[in-house]
């Protein structure tokens, strides 16, 4: 940043306060809060000040307008996508379409809107693509740092709060991120640990056969990391009470009753919601209609997957900014699993085929009924004739 120093570029950006900013790897442009040191857990980035700030007296209306949505539309259509996430008795389903649009052009028909953050958390993103990519990476970094510092994973609600706090300084700027965090809270229990080992064996077998990995690598690495902790905890548990049963160890190791599926919505304008069904984007009203109708807590995995696929399909049918394929993730206590990407074109043709068959059947039934009526009601035909 030698040119900045020579030009005195930064002098115009200084705030009225006397605090000096320590140089960080991004240069002086990104201020850090002066009261926090760089190694603190809350080393967030702040947006750079506008040049004209010093001379402009902020009036009430100019500052309020800056915090309003920049789009000035009757309702927001800026998130051209359909993403959804919901919880049920066997975990979380996260589904999204794959169309990335820019006004009227489909920039990419095969974009990936669901990103895994760690073994038990995926995030559905909508909004501006660049912002989403950046904030996903920042969130992944912060989650990993938390895990390394505290030797346990941050809860989904905690991650939502963290993301919300990190996005808050950018409120009023054009950052547009609407993320749905879908994941499973809680430490791995001994039972899940064993199943993870089984999954690992299965994965290796599958990989040898097909060369395709279906299960997250991070799940395996977290299993390895957890296994060290697990052994220590197990040792302590057994030392305390050698006769402890499997059930007891499971309770000791699990997250104190706070484990379970979670889905959380975080928006760059500050809205943060926890719920059971969340859908975001221009296609979300259509998806909500299908989800509200079919959702039950006690669904099976197949029913849930079918519901999610149906919801995204209907949304892509009606919404111009959603389409192409559907991505589906299923997160349980063992981690996330990804289903193959499905082309919705096939679904559309299958539906058309089904409708055609139904029409044919109805036609046949009608003819049969008319045939019967003609046979029975001869007197009527005489009258009418």
């Amino acid at each position, binding site marked *: 940043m030698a040119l900045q120093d020579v030009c005195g570029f930064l002098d115009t950006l200084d705030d009225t306060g006397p605090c000096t900013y320590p140089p960080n790897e991004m240069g002086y442009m990104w201020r850090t809060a002066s009261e926090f040191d760089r190694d603190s857990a809350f080393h967030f980035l702040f947006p750079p000040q506008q040049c004209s700030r010093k001379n402009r007296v902020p009036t009430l209306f100019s*500052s309020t307008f800056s915090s309003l949505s920049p789009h000035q539309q009757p309702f927001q259509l800026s998130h051209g996508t359909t993403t959804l996430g919901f919880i049920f008795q066997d975990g979380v389903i996260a589904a999204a379409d794959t169309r990335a649009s820019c006004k009227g052009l489909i920039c990419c028909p095969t974009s990936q809107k669901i990103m895994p953050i760690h073994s038990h958390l995926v995030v559905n993103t909508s909004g501006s693509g660049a912002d989403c990519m950046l904030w996903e990476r920042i969130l992944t970094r912060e989650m990993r740092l938390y895990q390394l510092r505290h030797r346990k994973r941050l809860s989904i609600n905690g991650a939502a709060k963290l993301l919300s706090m990190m996005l808050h300084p950018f409120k009023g700027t054009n950052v547009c991120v609407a993320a749905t965090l879908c994941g499973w809270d809680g430490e791995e229990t001994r039972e899940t640990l064993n199943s993870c080992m089984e999954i690992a064996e299965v994965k290796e077998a599958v990989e040898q056969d097909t060369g395709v990995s279906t299960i997250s690598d991070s799940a395996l690495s977290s299993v390895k990391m957890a296994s060290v902790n697990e052994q220590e905890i197990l040792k302590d548990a057994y030392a305390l009470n050698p006769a402890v049963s499997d059930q007891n160890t499971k309770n000791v190791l699990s997250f104190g009753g706070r484990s379970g599926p979670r889905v959380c919505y975080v928006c760059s*304008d500050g809205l943060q919601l926890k719920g059971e069904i969340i859908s975001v984007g221009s296609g979300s009203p259509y998806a909500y209609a299908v989800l509200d109708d079919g959702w039950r807590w006690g669904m099976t995995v197949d029913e849930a997957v079918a519901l999610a696929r149906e919801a995204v399909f209907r949304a892509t049918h009606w919404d111009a900014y959603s389409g192409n394929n559907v991505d589906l993730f299923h997160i349980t206590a063992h981690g996330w699993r990804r289903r193959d990407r499905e082309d919705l074109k096939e679904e559309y043709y299958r539906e058309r085929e089904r409708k055609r068959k139904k029409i044919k059947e109805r036609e046949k039934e009608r003819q049969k009924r008319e045939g019967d009526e003609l046979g029975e009601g001869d007197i009527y035909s005489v009258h009418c004739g």
Partner: protein
Amino acid sequence: MEYLIGIQGPDFVLVAADNVAASSIIQMKHDYDKMFKLSEKILLLCVGEAGDTVQFAEYIQKNVQLYKMRNGYELSPAAAANFTRKNLADYLRSRTPYHVNLLLAGYDEADGPGLYYMDYLSALAKAPFAAHGYGAFLTLSILDRYYRPGDSALSLIRLNKRFILNLPSFTVRLIDKDGIHDMEKLPRVSFPSLSSSDR
């Protein structure tokens, strides 16, 4: 679209808030709680711009709790209201003003019940009854007409039930000398009517 109401009685305060968390045209949540518990006998009801409400209310909440931790006793409702107003005013002419409308309701051992109305320009007023939102236009005049300072809790709750608007449901809470009590969640009442015999 959001709605808050508070009514002060002789030895209690009754507050209600709607339960909708909306994002443009979609109701994302039907059971969203807009009341923040500042202390055992103080509630802060907060509506306004999406992220600002939670940020500001939690900031005030944590600071009030910090006061208690540092000094060993709780802030009174009047002090909490003035603290909130000061913060809102300080942020008003900064780079990040908070666009929130608040009702602060509390019970003080010495002063009795208190209801404080605050708007986004950090105007503070202690009032016997107050409301925020579009519903306020309709209910404030009814309150003017029918409110009497000595009303008992029961008649005021009935009053509350009568003119709840066409929003799906409301959380209702009562603060008196024993703390904060949850009343039943009110479902939708489409045609509010107010006849003298019901009072």
